[in-house]
């Protein structure tokens, strides 16, 4: 999604008020500047008339000038991605590196991930714990669904461990392109990646493993759907939430007929694996 930048010149006394007003018009983020405020909104929500109405509301109190610019899509994370250090999981289990790093044959599985502003390099606890969980549960011949796949890292490890078929999806167009590219770099072009949400998965499909590294709110809503897609004795791997939310996630999974079989905690992040009872 492309973004629009609204640059406002106004008195600092009114920046917070304008932020609150623009927040209601769909603006997502803001930066205070010496001249006033920069505000950012996705192109589809940009409504210049509504902005003019807000400005008109305050014109008796203060002068506000604005300028609109359309922002090009760009990989802002390129600098970090060009220099990132490989990460390892467990004793010689998994190593994640970029294509510019030298291979290391000491590891059972080596994943090549060029992230291009998508999430999932294993540097974050939520990802590395999922990789570690995966290495402890057999994937050979199993049907795997990766929900919110980002770089495709979890789906790629699943394919390397012999899972088939492997299906992955993400809501972000960029992540989809990136996962396809990474699947190719790892010689697993058969991984099917599409853009969408869980609602786009055919409810008649069945999987042996569902991988979901997302966040607490989405997981709490979607866990019952993941479970409905699982075969008997199927596994659900979840991550992306803090330790203090683990009990809610576990309760939701139990309610849907799952039992906890593995649990990891790192830096206050939690990651759990459930089996369909």
């Amino acid at each position: 999604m492309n973004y629009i930048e609204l640059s406002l010149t106004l008195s600092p006394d009114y920046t917070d008020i304008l932020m609150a007003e623009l927040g209601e018009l769909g603006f997502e983020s803001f930066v205070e500047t010496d001249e006033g405020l920069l505000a950012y909104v996705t192109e589809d929500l940009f409504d210049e008339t509504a902005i003019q109405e807000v400005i008109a509301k305050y014109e008796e109190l203060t002068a506000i000038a604005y300028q609109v610019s359309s922002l090009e899509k760009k990989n802002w994370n390129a600098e970090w991605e060009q220099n990132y250090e490989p990460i390892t999981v467990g004793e010689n289990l998994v190593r994640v590196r970029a294509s510019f790093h030298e291979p290391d044959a000491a590891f059972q599985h080596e994943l090549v991930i060029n992230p291009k502003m998508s999430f999932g390099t294993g540097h974050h606890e939520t990802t590395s714990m999922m990789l570690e969980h995966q290495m402890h549960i057999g994937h050979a011949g199993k049907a795997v669904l990766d929900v919110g796949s980002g770089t495709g890292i979890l789906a790629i490890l699943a394919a390397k461990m012999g899972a088939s078929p492997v299906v992955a999806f993400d809501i972000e167009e960029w992540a989809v392109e990136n996962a396809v590219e990474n699947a190719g770099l790892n010689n697993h072009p058969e991984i099917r990646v599409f853009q969408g949400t869980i609602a786009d998965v055919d409810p008649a499909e069945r999987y042996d493993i569902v991988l979901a590294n997302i966040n607490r709110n989405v997981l709490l809503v979607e866990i019952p759907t993941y479970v409905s897609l699982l075969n008997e004795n199927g596994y659900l791997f979840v991550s992306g939430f803090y330790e203090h939310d683990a009990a809610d996630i576990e309760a939701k999974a139990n309610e849907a007929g799952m039992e906890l079989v593995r649990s990891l905690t790192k830096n206050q992040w939690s990651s759990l694996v459930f089996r369909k009872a």
Partner: protein
Amino acid sequence: MAKEVGGYVKLQVKGGQANPSPPIGPALGSKGLNIMEFCKQFNGRTQDKMGMILPVLITYYKDKTFDFVIKTPPAPVLLKEAAKVKGGSAQPNRTKVGSVSWDQVKQIAETKMPDLNCFTVESAMRMIAGTARSMGITVTGTAPWDNQ
């Protein structure tokens, strides 16, 4: 040894909605920080404040690591939430479409105290009530200091 600070970035981002686009992307990306990690962490920590504008102060270090502090939402955001007025009044000085009670003003003042340059809750309340008036939100009832 303590890590060497490279600098600070201050942004305002809606809870649960950080993504690598501007302003987060360019602000952190240009420093060589991993934007994706910031987004995952910020969204993880703000699941209870989905959609609420939150000031975030990011400290980045010379070794390309960072940490951040999330502050209380700006007073106008809290006022809108309290008054539940969509868009406020079309003419703030005339038509009052939303209202908040002095109790709500006090609550907001107490929430904002750590981030305001006010020494007493009363002065914070006066400031919040002034902001409400600018936005066309009426404060209903009698101010506690008028009661005595």
